[in-house]
């Protein structure tokens, strides 16, 4: 009803007590900025790390052959299992399997471009490998395709760093590279990515050719490993047991014999990572919230001083007919008002910091912080609660003053 008068009075008080107002608001500004910046950077770091983890692929399994540890249908234990490309073919029909690719590897092949010479590792795979392992062609490039497989084309896809080292200034797509003196047409270069973990070396230093070409060229019957992906992360255990079933039937081992296959399930890594970052962000959020709570305690103390100072004025207002509820809401309103100003400035400050941050070029280490919706909601609700609580106690004290005592001062 009289909020305009409230505001006029608040502004009058703020003018009369500039330093105090400034200090009060500063506590809230600082707390708000702490909450927002910590949460935003937390989120940025998590997304950055997540990208790096997913540089290997999202919820995938890399599977190598092992040795049986149980005798099965009269066959002895300690039997060596070996994979062929047909095994990958077979695994396509495992329920909830999204994608499978065989992987042939050859280390220390000689790659030559003009006078440049390098030892490289060659991977033979299927087109789907690109999706499973996030080996993504950059603009104007392509990965191995089905035609390459069918026609055993001598085409090659280069890892980012390798491409830059062999072709320092030009786009290699369309050029030729000699692999062990056999010319290969370069059809694509990998888009740069972060990669946290690897096997057979980082993807940026690898080269990829069609599995069929690999088999013919290197005369290999057996593949090194298989990579596969479930159609949903939570289906991974089902898919894995499906894989044991299928491989057990084909290679004659007990599906319960875990040693027969050697699996690296990256979804475990991702689960651990998510839990870790959840804890990390809660930790940051709590630190920020505590900073804001300290700001709230500051504002509450100062409002107590204000109540003290205005005791006589409160008494007068009561004598003129102000109800307790009016006095209370005036102080809560005033505290909220200061909190909102502080929160707003804190937001503006954080916003500026986060928008200027990219100019420091630190994305590689801490990612790009952003004020996401969840961060904003968290900050605003913490602020609101703090404003209310910080205002409530001084307001209650003010409204419980005895007007006669208050006027006597």
């Amino acid at each position: 009803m009289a909020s305009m008068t409230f505001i006029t009075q608040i502004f009058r008080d703020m003018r009369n007590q500039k330093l105090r107002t400034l200090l009060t608001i500063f506590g809230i500004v600082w707390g708000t900025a702490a909450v927002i910046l910590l949460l935003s950077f937390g989120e940025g770091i998590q997304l950055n790390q997540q990208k790096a983890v997913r540089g290997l692929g999202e919820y995938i399994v890399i599977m190598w052959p092992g040795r049986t540890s149980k005798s099965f249908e009269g066959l002895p234990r300690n039997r060596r299992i070996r994979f062929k490309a047909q095994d990958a073919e077979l695994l396509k029909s495992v329920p909830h399997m999204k994608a499978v690719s065989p992987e042939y590897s050859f280390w220390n092949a000689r790659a030559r471009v003009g006078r440049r010479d390098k030892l490289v590792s060659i991977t033979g795979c299927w087109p789907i490998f690109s999706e499973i392992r996030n080996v993504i062609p950059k603009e104007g490039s392509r990965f191995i395709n089905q035609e390459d497989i069918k026609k055993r084309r001598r085409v090659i896809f280069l890892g980012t760093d390798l491409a830059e080292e062999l072709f320092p200034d030009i786009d290699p797509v369309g050029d030729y590279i000699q692999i062990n003196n056999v010319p290969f047409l370069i059809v694509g270069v990998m888009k740069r990515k972060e990669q946290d973990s690897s096997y057979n070396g980082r993807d940026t230093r690898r080269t990829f050719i069609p599995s069929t070409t690999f088999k013919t060229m290197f005369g290999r019957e057996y593949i090194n490993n298989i990579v596969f992906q479930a159609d949903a992360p939570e289906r991974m255990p089902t898919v894995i047991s499906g894989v044991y079933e299928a491989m057990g039937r084909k290679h004659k081992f007990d599906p319960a014999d875990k040693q027969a296959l050697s699996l690296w399930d990256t979804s475990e890594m991702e689960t651990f990572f998510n839990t870790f970052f959840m804890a990390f962000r809660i930790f940051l959020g709590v630190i920020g919230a505590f900073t804001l709570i300290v700001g709230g305690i500051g504002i509450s103390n100062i409002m107590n001083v204000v109540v003290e100072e205005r005791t006589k004025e409160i008494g007068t207002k009561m004598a003129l007919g102000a109800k307790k509820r009016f006095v209370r809401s005036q102080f809560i309103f005033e505290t909220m008002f200061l909190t909102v100003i502080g929160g707003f400035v804190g937001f503006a400050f954080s916003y500026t910091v986060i928008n200027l941050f990219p100019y420091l070029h630190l994305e590689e280490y801490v990612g790009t912080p952003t004020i996401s919706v969840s961060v904003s909601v968290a900050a605003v609700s913490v602020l609101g609660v703090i404003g209310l609580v910080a205002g409530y106690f001084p307001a209650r004290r003010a409204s419980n003053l005895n007007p006669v005592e208050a006027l006597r001062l």
Partner: protein
Amino acid sequence: MLPERLVTFRNDSAFVELLNELSEPAETLITTGLSDGLNVEIASGLIESTQVVQRPPKEIE
């Protein structure tokens, strides 16, 4: 001729993405001719002037 990177080969068939009436990309069956690995001849299914959808590289998230 079309850059081969715009063609998807699946089950012995070839597809490209064209914009439909709703301006959404939709797969269209084509038949291809000779290819040098980079560019491929289109035998049928595509008129020379039609714009084939070119997707930007996937972003890891």
